Structures are given as C-alpha cells and as structure tokens.
C-alpha cells in the first residue's frame, strides 16, 4: 500500500488522502448527496445500493447535520454540521479490515506507535429499518470509525452483505493533526497564501444554525413539511410503474427516497426545537422507517436493485 511518509498537515489533506486511497482500491469516488442528511449512510449510494445482488464499491464525503448537536461553535468537539467519510463495498471483501487499516496508515496513523482496536458496537438505524454487526474502531482509546457488516436495510436482508466504513472526519483529523479545538484546525495548508482554519469557514455558520435549530426554525411549518414529505413519498410510490411517454417501466424509488430523507431531517429539526415528546418520538421514527421500507421495496423492483437472474 502507498504509505505516505509525511504526516498530513491539514483537514483537506486527510480527505484527499482518503479519496486517493479508496480510489486506488477501486472504489467509485462519488460526491456528497445534495440533500440534508444526518449521516453518510442516508446517501442512496449506501442505503439503496446495499440492497440487491449487484456488486458495488463507492466512497464519498458526506456533509451531515445533527441539529441537536449545535453548540454555537464553542464546543471543541461538537458540531451540528460535520463531515463523514463513507465507504461501502458489496459484497464485503475478505480483507475489509486490512483495507481499512491501510487507510489509517495512509493518513499517517502508524500501527507500530498506536493502539488500534476493534471494539464491539452493533449498528442500528431505527429510521432506516437497518442494522448490522461490527465494531467501533479505537485508536489510542478514541473512536475513529464505525465498521459495519450490513445485515438488513429497509427491512430487507442484505444478500450479499455490504461492508460499510464511516469515519468521523473532524475528530479523526483533530487527532492526526494534534488539534484540541475543532475551530483551530487548519483546513487548507498552513503555509498557503491564504491559510484558513475550520473556524474561519464554519464558526459563523455553527452560530447561525445553532440559533436556527434551537430557536429560529418555525415548528408549525416544519410539522407541515414533514406531513408533506410523507404524503409525497407515498404518492410517488403509488404512481403506476408504466410510463406512457417512454413506454418503459419506471419506478420512482429515488425521488420517493428523497422525500424520506427530507422527512428524516425535518424530524431532527423538530427534535432540536424540543417540540417532540418522548412518546411522540417513537411514533415519528416509526413513520420515517415506514417510508424507508417502502422505498427499499420499490428499489428492489428496479434494475439497480433487483437480484441477478439465476441461470439454471
């Protein structure tokens, strides 16, 4: 593996090294999904593509939003908007762990100096109706990644099984770069003509969105939008598959899934606004899961999601 001897100097260099490492390993380097999501798993390249028998390998950065985690840019580790690096390979290769450890080496984590551990952590997404077994990966006692073998997504058994890696990029980078406060982390090279820190780019937005998430967002409107997204998802799935214009069967699994993503984010915002009680919470999560399952059902009927014909 191509281990770079020099340590990375900034946040974006870590991302670039991960991109180049996984590109070398044969993954399609995708771009972030253009919607607000809570985690890289929500990208259809992971949720939907982990279904069906077609082989798949993709890696991408996904900006992720967790409205309740906003701390006005003041907390050294917590952000309401952060980046995840996501790798998904189907079927999971036998050397998935070694591939992963190679990626740590690529960003400057030398296994002869550090203590890397795989600690049991079973992953479950109640909103996606998904679960898998795996670990959180510890480096010197810090969780740097989540490693999961998907067993079920959208209520469907994963056959074959996808291997999924999620890196929390800010935390990982802070560790590699030896930075104590996320806002102090160099974003581009410190000796660039215009050096920028993470704080230069995100401190203000963290402030603005924290206020928005906790106090500003119009809850009545959010509730309406949630209902709308839910209804729209169902309406799109209820469309007759046969498209009269083209004469083709076109199931709108992805557009419907977009509405699921929307509903999920709206729910997160409502949660941050504190208007969802403990008992209602479960009901909302159940509603989003119902949408995710229907989208998974629909995707399984499409070309990309169906099982390969078994040749007798």
């Amino acid at each position: 593996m191509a281990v770079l001897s020099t340590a990375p100097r900034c946040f974006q260099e870590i991302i670039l090294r991960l991109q180049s490492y996984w590109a070398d390993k044969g993954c399609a380097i995708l771009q972030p999904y253009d919607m607000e999501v809570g985690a890289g798993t929500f990208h259809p390249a992971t949720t939907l593509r982990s279904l069906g028998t077609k082989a798949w390998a993709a890696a991408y950065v996904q900006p992720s939003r967790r409205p309740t985690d906003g701390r006005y840019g003041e907390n050294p580790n917590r952000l309401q908007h952060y980046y995840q690096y996501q790798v998904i390979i189907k079927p999971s290769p036998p050397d998935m762990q070694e591939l992963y450890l190679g990626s740590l080496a690529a960003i400057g984590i030398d296994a002869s100096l550090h203590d890397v551990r795989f600690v049991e952590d079973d992953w479950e997404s109640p909103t996606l109706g998904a679960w898998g077994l795996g670990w959180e990966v510890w480096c010197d006692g810090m969780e740097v990644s989540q490693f999961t073998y998907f067993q079920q997504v959208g209520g469907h058994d994963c056959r074959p099984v996808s291997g999924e890696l999620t890196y929390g990029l800010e935390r990982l980078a802070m560790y590699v770069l030896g930075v104590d406060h996320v806002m102090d982390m160099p974003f581009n090279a410190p000796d660039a003509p215009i050096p920028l820190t993470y704080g230069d780019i995100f401190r203000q937005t963290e402030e603005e969105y924290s206020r928005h998430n906790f106090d500003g967002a119009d809850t009545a409107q959010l509730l309406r939008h949630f209902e709308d997204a839910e209804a729209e998802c169902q309406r799109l799935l209820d469309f007759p598959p046969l498209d009269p214009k083209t004469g083709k069967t076109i199931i709108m699994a992805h557009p419907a899934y977009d509405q699921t993503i929307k509903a999920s984010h709206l729910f997160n915002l409502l949660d941050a606004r504190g208007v969802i009680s403990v008992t209602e919470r479960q009901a909302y999560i159940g509603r989003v899961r119902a949408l995710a399952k229907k989208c998974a059902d629909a995707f399984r009927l499409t070309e990309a999601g169906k099982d390969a014909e078994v040749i007798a």
Partner: protein
Amino acid sequence: MADLLIELFSEEIPARMQARAREDLKTLVTNGLVEAGLTYAGAGAHSTPRRLALAIEGLSAHSAATVEERKGPATTAPDAALEGFLRSTGLSKDQLEIRDDKKGQVYFAVIKKPGRPAAPIIAEVLEHTIRNFPWPKSMRWGSGNLRWVRPLHSILCLLTDEAGAEVVPLSVDGIASGNTTAGHRFLAPARFSVTSFDDYTAKLKRAFVMLDSAEREATIWQGAQNLAFAAGMDVVEDRALLAEVAGLVEHPVPLMGRIDEAFLGLPPEVLQTSMREHQKFFSARNPKTGRIEGFITVANTQPSDHGAVILKGNQKVLTARLSDARFFWENDLRVAKAGMGEWLDALDSVTFHNKLGSQKARIDRIAALAREIAPMVGADADIAEQAAKVAKADLRSAMVGEFPELQGLMGMYYAREAGLPEAVALAARDHWRPKGESDSVPTDPVSVAVALADKIDTLTGFWAIDEKPTGSKDPFALRRAALGVIRLVLGNGVRVGLLNIFGKHISILIPMAKAVGGVENIPEGKTAKDDADLLAFFHDRLKVFLKDQGIRPDIIEACLAMPNNDDLTLLVKRAEALAAFLKTDDGTNLLQGAKRAANILAQAEAKDGVEYSFGADIKFAETDSERALFAALDAADAKIAPAMAGEDFAAAMSAMAALRAPIDAFFTDVQVNADSEILRRNRLNLLHRIRALCAGVADFSKLEG
C-alpha cells in the same frame, strides 16, 4: 491415542461473548465426539479476540466397533415378515442365524458395525458445531450464507499422534481446514503452521499472542498493580472490567497515566464510571488523599516508543471526556444549589406513562404516600415528603443523562449541595433500591418510606390501568417492584396493612389518571378487586421469596387464611414459627392428629348435616384419655389465645406441642364413633375444639404431610 487441536480464527469477537463461547465450543465438540463413540481424556478451551481454540487430549483413534443382535421372526413365519426383517437390518437371508427360542426356531440378525477412524467423525462434529454455534448474535458476510459472530477466516483442525500431525480435512462454506494460523494483528501478522497444541501455544507466544485468557487477566492485573505501586497508588479492583479488557487484547501492555488536577474535584464515582464505560480504564486511588487520581489503560501492542504516543492519545481522550463530565457537574451544581427547581419543573413535561401522567405527577403521588407511610417506619413525615419530592430530580441532571447508572448517587450529591437534610440525600440515593435480588435493602427510615411509596405507587398505578405482568412479559418490572416492597417490609420489620395503603393511594391516583385520560370512569367494585388481586400478586411473590429462604409454599398458604394477611411482617412471623414447629416431632405428629380430627369431623358433619360446634361436655367423658384431652385443650386455650393476640407465635406453638401426647392417646384409646349417640356427639364436639384451636393458628388443611 491422539491429541486434537481446533482453532476457529475470525475477526474480532466481542469481549463479553468469549467466556461463554469457550464453554460452548468445548461442550459441543466433546459431546459430539462422545456421541459418535470416541473417548477422550481431557479438553481445554481458549479464546482471544480473534480466535476460539480447543485442545483435546487422549482422543481415541477409532470409535469402538459395535455388535447389535436383533431377534427376528420365527422360521415358520410368512415370507413377508422375513422380508421386512431383512430390509430393516440390511442383511440377506444367509447372513441370519437361526436360534432356538421358547416358541421354536427364530431368525437372529447379528449386525456388526466396525469402528470408524476419528478424523471423519471430527470433521462431521466440527462442521455441525460451526454451523449451529449458539452465538448471542451472529451475522453473514460477503456472498456467503454461513453465520458466525464476525467473519470467520480460517479453521485449524489438527490430529496429532506418535506418527505425526495430520490435518483433519473438512470444508465449511468454502473455508477449508488447515494447520496454519496467524499471530498478532500488527506485531506478527504472517501465517504459520503448527504441529501440536504445545507448538501452537509456543509459536503464538512468539507471535505476541497470549492464548490463555486467565494468563492475560493475571498479566494485566499484575502489571496494573506494579504501575500503581510505583506511583504510590492502589488499583481499584474491577473483575468485570478485567475480564472485558482481557477479551480485547492478545498482547496486553498496561500503561498508567495521571488524571489532570482540574478533574480531581469530581465525585470519585463519576471519574470511575466515565473511565470504565467510555475508555475501559482501571482507576487508581491515592491512599493518602483517598481520591481517584490515576488511570491504567491496557494497550494491545508493543509500541516502539514504550507507549508514549498511546498514553498521550488516551490522556487526551480522557481529558475530553472528563471535560464533558465536569461541564455536566458544574451545570448540575448550579441547578442543585438553587434547590433543583429547574429539574423538578422539567419533570412535568416528561411522561412517566401516558395513562398515568408525567413524572411530576408521579412524584407528587409518591410524596403523598411517603407521608402516609413515614410514621409506620419511624420516619418524620415532613422529611419523607420532602425527600420524595426531590428524590427523582437527578433524572433531569446532565450527569445522569450521560451516565444513567449514576442515577440516585448523583441525587445524593445534589441534595447535599441543595443544603437538604442528610436523610433526604440518602433517600435520593437509596429509594431506587433494592434494584435486584442481590442488592441490599435501605434501612434509613426516610429512605424506607420513599422506597416503599415509590414501588407501591408503581404497582397500584399499573394495576389501575390493567397493565399487569402476564407470563414471561413484565415490561414495567412489576415483579421486581413487588419483591422490593417485600424485602423492604421484612428487612425492616415494617408493620403495615397493605390493603389500607392501596386503598388510600388509589384515591389519590385515580383522579390523576383521569386527568390525563388514562382511565375512564372506574366500574363499581374494580378498585376493591384490583386491591385484592394486587395483594394476591404480593402473596405469590412472597411464596417465591420465602421458598428460597427454605419455607415451603404450603406453609405460607396455611398462614394466608389468617386475619391481617396483608401485613407481611406478621404473615412471615407466623409462617416462620409454623415452619419451625412442623420441623419438630411434636409438630408433625400434631399435624397428623389435627388432620385426623378434621377428617373424622368432616365425614360426620357431611353425614349428619350439622356442624359439631355445640361444645363438648366433660361429664360425658368416659376414659382417662378423653378427660386428659379436655384438660389439655383447656390449658392450651388459656395459653394460645393470648399468645396469638400478642403475636407470640413461638409460645402458641409450644402450647400446641403440649397437645400432641393427649391427642395421640385419645385416638389410641377412644372410639369416636361410639354406639351411644350422646358419647359420639360429645366426642365430635371435642374434635371440633381441636379443629378450632388449630384454626386459630393457621389453616392446617392447606399443609402437606
């Protein structure tokens, strides 16, 4: 004789599953081998994060040959019978033997099964074991269908005898057996072959893998103690953590660091919990200050810099974690010092159960009930009420939000900060208890009052909304709550009529439940029925509890028939005295006599259609035995009634014991069903005195024996 070595090499097995998996592997494989006719001398199972291993010594090379003889039809039987016999034995006619039998000549089949070599048996047993392994959770990976706890990579299966070592060939879902394994993931990743268990452990050791988990535990513990000693500290013992950490490492290297001065003001339980739960660190205490001042982490590698980088990283993570904890603590202290009002208000918006209202409503009920109970347990009513009001405030604290297991304990700290009486602080800590069967029971009167009120509120509440436990389903842990009440009452000798408490409490509870639409109008008589049903639930729990203490359920049953059976302390006192009495000779014999008396009476009463409770007259007594029984009953009556009234059950029992001889003598010498109707009736009336006297102690008809 041969030795067998099996290793199942996989990706990291969760630490908590390893001990059980070792046992399961050993049991499944050895049972399978024995069932197939092999014998072995000894077996030992091992685990590391990446492997399960089993070494079997002294395994027989073949299963024993077996000879089975089966008797067939008579030689004169129709052909069809013979054909059937041939089919079932797999033999031909000329292979059968003809032997003489009582009824003539019959066919005999002698089926010889040769012994099988060990290897194919091992292969079958191991494949079956792998495919049916009882992991608590298992998974598929890649394109395969095999399930294992995490992806299984290789199977080592080696049979060694004087002639050498040989791989037992098998293949499970494409994984073929071999004689190789791999060492430590980072320190010696290359695969190597082995020839025996000794060779295997020796080579693993060279490859930085300590196979034996007990050895890893000992290494960790010894290393941790040495580090702590050098720093002038003691390691806080934590067996569960030690076992877990031993399951996370193949090459344990303990490293010690100090906790930053800035965090030493945190309660020691917070430091310990944060370090254990998040980081799996051991805590080290400075004996001079009594504080937790150090930590020990266990690395799974031999770092080239003696662990400087690893320790620095761990220290950094700990600092971040403890900064969070300190942030929670400081925020919590602010709220606590202001009287915890912020948390109490917030509990108004937290639902306890949608039919029973908010946590706030629940706390109000518990406070009212704690007031009622206080005088019965020797607590001050005002303080009990005050304690109940704040005991659950810590549920809203940031620290408990982060570490739910610190619930109660944080309440104690915060109550102290709020300047509340120490009894209130202790109640905040202890009113949750006893949490399980092994948890101790609070004894401070205020804690007892609040703990009882808490649990009784839960029970009456869920009974009112018909959420009772059914079968194995007990989602609200109501059995545990009832057992908690039982242990609180008995442990503290509390005298309380539960029905009275239920009744009073339900009158507070129902209006509150109605206010949230949890219950509609209660049908006439439901409350009384619920109360009786709940008391019966307590009685069932009590039977289970006392059975574990060696008191038979039928003894409880006999005592339940007595008045005030909702006073559990009284009930148990009675049962204990009765149980002790029945263990004596006098007791068992008296029980026989009393039962005999009751049986004779019951028959006579059924036949005559009257109850013989008219009073026996001594003037119709004919024999000395009869007169002696009159005297004995008079004497016993004089003692038993006051003893029972004074709850001196031991005195009552010893008075009962004095009846044994006169009753025995009466039944020996006297015929109850005398020819004279006058004598007969008088004797039946005399037996009734025995029955009545016993009934004043317990319902003897419920007793076995």
